[in-house]
């Protein structure tokens, strides 16, 4: 489901960016910039303020979530 009911699929959009910090557009349709550090991706994403960037780190490998 998307926000109207279907799952939001970021898997293919993000797959090429293993191990990097990524900024995606607020509508989750495109990658805006990537970097190896959060500081770099924040600086670069300032250019895309109007697209309401969302940042995340794509894992190096699948990380189990155990908390």
């Amino acid at each position, binding site marked *: 489901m998307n926000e109207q009911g279907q799952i939001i699929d970021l*898997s293919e959009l993000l797959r090429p960016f293993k191990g990097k910090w990524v900024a995606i557009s607020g509508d989750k349709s495109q990658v805006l910039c990537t970097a190896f550090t959060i500081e770099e991706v924040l600086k670069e994403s300032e250019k895309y303020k109007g697209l309401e960037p969302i940042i995340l780190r794509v894992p190096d490998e699948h990380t189990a979530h155990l908390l």
Partner: protein
Amino acid sequence: MIRTITFPYIRFPAYPTDAFPVRTFIERPALQTTIEYQGKVFPNFFFSIIDSGADSCVFPSVIGRQIGIDIYSGRSEATVGVAGSGTTFYHSVTVHVSIQGQLYHFDCYAGFLDGLDQFGFGLLGHHGFFNLFESVTLDSKKKFVELKVEIP
């Protein structure tokens, strides 16, 4: 009156491991969040996972430092979890959440954990998040989250 808020899981890439050699994605109950500390707001949204196994809300230290939080000055608690064991340091922040284009916020005594830096996600746990709602349902089969909140 009870208001129901429903939204879908998000599918993230996963990479093959010895244990799961053919898995290519993982679906998580995640929300767009950002945090505010003493009037300074982290400039972008980031994802936080609704985590029924987390006792409290915890965010990556690296995100807290970007808005001026002196992480290690907070009250501390030993933590065992996603990043092994470590120390979580607590600070009072405001958490902003975007759900289906609507913005919500709540005050939260939240932890910051260095071990989450490589994970890059926050965790929305019981103290601070779950206790805001009448119920939180994670429908892992249909892949949606349902929050029931009492409206005065």
